[in-house]
């Protein structure tokens, strides 16, 4: 065996170009798979850093709810916890606790979780400093003014000072005592979330503690031994039905189910589908790489057939020859795999540092990643080493010594190597098509009607939660701020809204028909998203007012309550009837529709048309506002002017100014499209590189093997086209057939692509045109050099070299 390895090293050393090409191919193929597996491992396979994660489940509503973590109200959580007999413990959290942290001179915008007192105890996590919030801390509203810091916040804001325990900090306007610091590896139960702190519900959302309509709590539970998730779900659904009877006005009795925590509730299905699909495509890249190498190895084995035949003649067994070829494949694969692992390790480390819109993702090269890369290396070596080994084991030594054609079977011109190159091209076409489909998806998404115009607009997010004013005084302050913004030179138009689309926190608000007296949720006719707006918001946002009027400062709590709805709201409520003048009850007020605006996207790009209602700021108090400002002036001129104007009126308010475009780019809106475009783009580029080397290798090999034949053909009268056809005709035919097969595969794999790309359509004429063009260019690029070499054939020289 050692002799085989030594000989393998010598053979590979003697063919540096071949060895380098093979190593780069393997490095790319294995490296891409290790990176993808590293992410799959971190997101899907790595258990949460809590005790007994296999028993931990998250409650979800029976219906699939995209991107929304919230499932139940705090009172309902308590009822479920008390009444169930299938969970050993239940805890809850609200992942939308955004706040301004003030400590000493530090003012920092932070996000954290509001949690139930038993949260840490149920998860079985131990603090690195101090203690955690405990169930015994809670004795009713405002009884536990404690905060637990994350390791990251502790280090960034408190310089990792253990003496911070016992210190009082302010979160918005409330004071909290720091009781502990979570361990560095603990980030809650969501892979993509990195909360900065944890505070108890009883001191955070007191107004919701008794409110059964505020679905703010995500519930986690630990199953009792021997209980299946199905049994637990049935138990919880029965309790939910019971609660609906007890609280018909607030509880819907919707059945519940259990999912694994960690992937943003039901978004886990999308993330899982995406990652497994990308992993599938990465494996295809490796298969293409192996086909490429198998083809190269088969060609080399054919070249060495005389040497191998001589070995047989000298007494070598066939197994010995196979072992020799496999040893070469294994040596190459090991070195290529090691290089791939190093590259993948660097990429994974970069990915670990990257702040995605979903948060930071902890990826690392652990034992599982190492084992996977070793397995990929061995399987690759077997895949591309076995084919030439089999070829050699089946060949006739006598024939090989005579160096004649192996046989005269009718299919002699269609070799295994052709099949391998064809398969590789088909896979390449599939991946190129997938890349172009992703790019098209991205372009489509960028041009999809959003219902607002982010280009040229600036957002100033102002948190007024700490100011004392309420009611009319607050409104006057907000009006003054808007006037101050409008007074900035260069501002064309400005408006305000409670939150801009795509920044989360949206939930359906029940709408009841006029005359409703029983506000049972089952009597609601629609659950639209709600935005609160100032006059002028639509103009500033670039949202088209389809009918009637905007809200006005004259719409007050002393005048009839009004609303503006979008087209989907109007259609769902009143069909073809005019919406203007129609009435409905929402948030305890009968409201009249005074305007209709165009539809848009609000939560994500994939959502179907959503009903939306816009309420005037004058009739719906709002403490946090986002000012939308449109100006021809440059962002870097406007941003400081905006900050000055706003902070002049409210010096204590935390103000964040960003271009709307940046806000949109940094949040979830385009992230799936960008991620899929990036992932498929990389796969496509890798596939193209492999296909170019594959076709080039085949064409170059063909030409070098057939120089004499080409010389004879030229001597017999072959013209340029004949020589070209003889030299690179086969690779070009294979390119055509492989591309066709790849396109067909892609159409068949549409469903796989749908997991990755928004509205994936491989039949898109532009995509097909792009694929044909790419493959044609690829064919030209790969066969140009061999073709030129073939055309330069000099028969007089070649034929005399014999």
């Amino acid at each position, binding site marked *: 065996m050692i002799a085989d390895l030594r000989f393998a090293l010598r053979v590979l050393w003697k063919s540096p170009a071949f060895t380098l090409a093979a190593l780069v191919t393997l490095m790319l193929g294995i490296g891409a798979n290790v990176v993808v597996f590293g992410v799959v491992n971190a997101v899907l396979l790595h258990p949460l850093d809590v005790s007994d994660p296999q028993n931990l489940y998250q409650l979800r509503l029976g219906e699939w709810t995209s991107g929304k973590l919230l499932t139940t109200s705090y009172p309902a959580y308590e009822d479920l916890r008390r009444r169930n007999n299938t969970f050993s413990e239940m805890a809850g959290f609200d992942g939308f606790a955004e706040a301004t942290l003030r400590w000493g001179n530090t003012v920092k915008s932070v996000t954290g979780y509001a949690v139930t007192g038993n949260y840490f105890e149920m998860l079985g996590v131990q603090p690195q400093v101090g203690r955690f919030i405990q169930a015994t801390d809670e004795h009713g509203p405002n009884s536990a003014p404690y905060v637990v810091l994350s390791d990251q916040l502790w280090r960034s804001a408190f310089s990792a000072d253990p003496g911070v325990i016992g210190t009082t900090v302010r979160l918005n306007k409330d004071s909290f005592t720091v009781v502990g610091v979570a361990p560095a590896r603990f980030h809650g139960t969501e892979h993509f979330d990195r909360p900065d702190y944890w505070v108890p519900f009883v001191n955070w959302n007191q107004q919701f503690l008794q409110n059964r309509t505020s679905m703010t709590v995500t519930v986690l539970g630990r199953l009792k031994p021997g209980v299946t998730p199905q049994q637990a779900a049935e138990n919880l659904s029965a309790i939910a039905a019971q609660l609906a009877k007890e609280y018909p006005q607030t509880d819907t009795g919707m059945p519940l189910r259990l999912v694994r925590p960690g992937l943003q509730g039901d978004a886990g299905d999308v993330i899982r589908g995406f990652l497994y699909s990308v992993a599938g495509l990465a494996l295809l890249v490796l298969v293409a790489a192996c086909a490429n190498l198998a083809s190269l190895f088969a060609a080399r084995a054919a070249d060495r057939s005389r040497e191998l035949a001589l070995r047989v003649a000298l007494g070598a067994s066939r197994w010995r020859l196979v072992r020799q070829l496999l040893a070469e494949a294994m040596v190459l694969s090991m070195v290529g795999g090691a290089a791939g692992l190093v590259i993948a390790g660097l990429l994974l480390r970069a990915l670990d540092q990257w702040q995605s819109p979903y948060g930071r993702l902890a990826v690392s090269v652990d034992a599982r990643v190492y084992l996977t890369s070793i397995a990929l290396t061995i399987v690759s070596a077997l895949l591309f080493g076995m084919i030439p080994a089999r070829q050699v084991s089946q060949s006739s030594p006598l024939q090989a010594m005579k160096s004649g054609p192996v046989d005269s079977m009718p299919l002699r011109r269609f070799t295994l190597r052709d099949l391998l190159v064809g398969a590789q091209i088909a896979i390449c076409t599939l991946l190129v098509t997938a890349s172009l489909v992703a790019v098209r998806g991205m372009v489509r998404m960028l041009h999809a009607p959003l219902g607002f115009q982010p280009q040229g607009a600036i957002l100033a997010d102002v948190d007024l939660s700490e100011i004392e004013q309420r009611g009319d005084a607050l409104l006057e302050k907000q009006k003054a701020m808007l006037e101050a913004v409008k007074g900035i030179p260069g501002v064309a138009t400005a408006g305000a809204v409670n939150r801009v689309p795509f920044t989360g926190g949206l939930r359906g608000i029940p709408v009841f028909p006029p005359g409703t007296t029983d506000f049972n949720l089952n009597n609601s006719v629609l659950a639209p998203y709600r935005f609160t707006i100032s006059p002028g918001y639509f103009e500033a946002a670039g949202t088209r007012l389809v009918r009637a009027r905007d809200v006005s400062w004259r719409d007050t709590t002393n005048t009839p309550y009004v609303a503006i709805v979008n087209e989907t709201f109007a259609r769902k409520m009143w069909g073809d009837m005019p919406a203007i003048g129609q009435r409905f009850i929402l948030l305890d007020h009968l409201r009249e529709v005074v305007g209709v605006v165009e539809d848009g996207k609000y939560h994500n790009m994939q959502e179907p048309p959503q009903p939306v209602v816009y309420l005037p700021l004058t009739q719906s108090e709002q403490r946090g506002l986002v000012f939308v400002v449109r100006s021809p002036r440059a962002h870097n001129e406007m941003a400081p002017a905006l900050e000055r104007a706003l902070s002049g009126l409210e010096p204590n308010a935390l103000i964040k100014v960003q271009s709307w475009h940046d806000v949109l780019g940094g949040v979830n809106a385009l992230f799936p499209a960008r991620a899929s475009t990036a992932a498929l783009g990389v796969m496509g580029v890798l596939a193209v590189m492999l296909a170019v080397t594959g076709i080039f290798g085949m064409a170059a090999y063909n030409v070098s093997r057939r120089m004499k034949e080409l010389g*004879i053909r030229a*001597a*017999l009268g072959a013209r340029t086209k004949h020589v070209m056809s003889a030299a690179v005709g086969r690779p070009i035919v294979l390119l055509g057939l492989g591309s066709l097969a790849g396109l067909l595969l892609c159409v068949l794999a549409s469903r796989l692509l749908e997991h990755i790309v928004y509205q994936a359509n491989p039949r898109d004429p532009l995509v097909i045109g792009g694929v044909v063009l790419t493959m044609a260019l690829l064919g030209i690029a790969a066969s140009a050099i061999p073709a030129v070499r073939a055309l330069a054939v000099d*028969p007089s020289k070649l034929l005399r070299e014999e």
Partner: protein
Amino acid sequence: MIKLKNLERSYPLAKEKFFYVLRDINLEVEEGDFVSIMGPSGAGKSTLLHILGMHDHGWRGEYFLGGTAVHHLKPKERATLRNEQIGFVFQQYHLLDDLTVYENLDIPLSYRHYKKSERAAMVADMLDRFQIVGKKDLYPSQLSGGQQQLVGVARAIIAEPKLLLADEPTGNLHSSQGEEIMELFCKLNEQGMTIVQVTHSEKNASYGKRVIQLRDGWIVKGE
């Protein structure tokens, strides 16, 4: 048929010097002639043959083939002329290994725009004429050397060239096979084909009508 005037072939050496393979070649070959070019190795025999066959374009001087001034033709026009007028036989046979005898004979015709039906008839005729019908589906490796060269000659003349160039056509054959090929050449010559062969063999040269001796690139006899 052939007229060469002051033909030279050289390869550049360092410092603007040249190595001359052929020098001041003046030669006339009449239609229906059978010329043997002889000389020691490195005399320039094969180079001269490849120039006549228009495989080599790096020469200077004048070359007339059947009244056409080859030296004035562009490479593409030379290729057309070659395809119309010249057939080539090689010492190593140079049959295409992956093609059958039938396909090897068909190849030159496919490069000359014959229709498929015409080609089939011409190949069938040639197989019959050379009595190799039974071998039409065999590959070159399944033939003896003599049989391969027979196919090589058949391939060279299948497009009915006026001039047959042969580079050591019997160099790889044993004597009886060599005689067979030379007798075949004589027969073709009698039928009107002009033949120019390169040979080391006095005996083979004796089948021809005229011998040209080359030495160090110069014609020393038979100009």
